[in-house]
């Protein structure tokens, strides 16, 4: 399954995006480049809708950790919404559920 990134809403405070498909070793760079471009251009909060994200692996999680660190440096937030059970399970196993805001 291919990965699709859609910008849902953007203003001067927040950029909301959905990430659909599979975020794995073959696709994580697409997300990394897109998110880095946005937060390098402006200091902004990020909200990611994972409703249609069916799979993530450690390369995808690594991207999210990198983005979270960058945002926190600028006192901005990363919120992850609607993640499926299999994805929440990985966050729980790695302890990242305590670091990320999952809604």
């Amino acid at each position, binding site marked *: 399954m291919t990965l699709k990134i859609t910008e849902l809403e953007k203003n001067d405070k927040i950029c909301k995006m959905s990430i659909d498909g599979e975020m*794995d*070793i073959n696709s994580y760079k697409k997300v990394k480049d897109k998110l880095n471009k946005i937060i390098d251009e402006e200091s902004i909060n990020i909200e990611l809708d994972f409703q249609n994200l069916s799979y993530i692996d450690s390369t995808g999680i*690594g991207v999210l950790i990198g983005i979270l660190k960058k945002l926190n440096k600028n006192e901005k937030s990363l919120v992850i919404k609607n993640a499926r059970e299999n994805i929440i399970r990985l966050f729980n196993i790695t302890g*990242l559920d305590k670091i990320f805001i999952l809604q």
Partner: protein
Amino acid sequence: MKDIVNLKLPCKAEFVNVARMNVATIANNMKMNYEVIQDLKVAVSEACNNVILHSDSDAYYEVVFAVTKDKLIIDINDYGVGFDMKNYEKPDLKHPKGHGLGLFIIENLVDEMKIITEDEIGTTIKMIKNV
């Protein structure tokens, strides 16, 4: 008695989902439940990622599934530089980095995991999931 399924995959990121789909099919045939199948998809993919990212491997690696009545044994065999076990550190989950989570995730998703490695010969990541 066991049945063997042997995949030979190119060391390229775009083929990891082939291993993932195969383990899902095999685990489903073994009547494992949905959650276990999701876990195995991640575990197998992480082991394949490890080959692609760290083994400096030859053009191909193997994913071998051995199906028995009560367990699924999965070997990921590469012919790369070997795994540096001495310098492997478990991730610090309070201060996560953007890398180094793969083996930790595998350990938590299967019943047994073993790494057999030899410098300049290659590495096998062996995973066992009981039915």
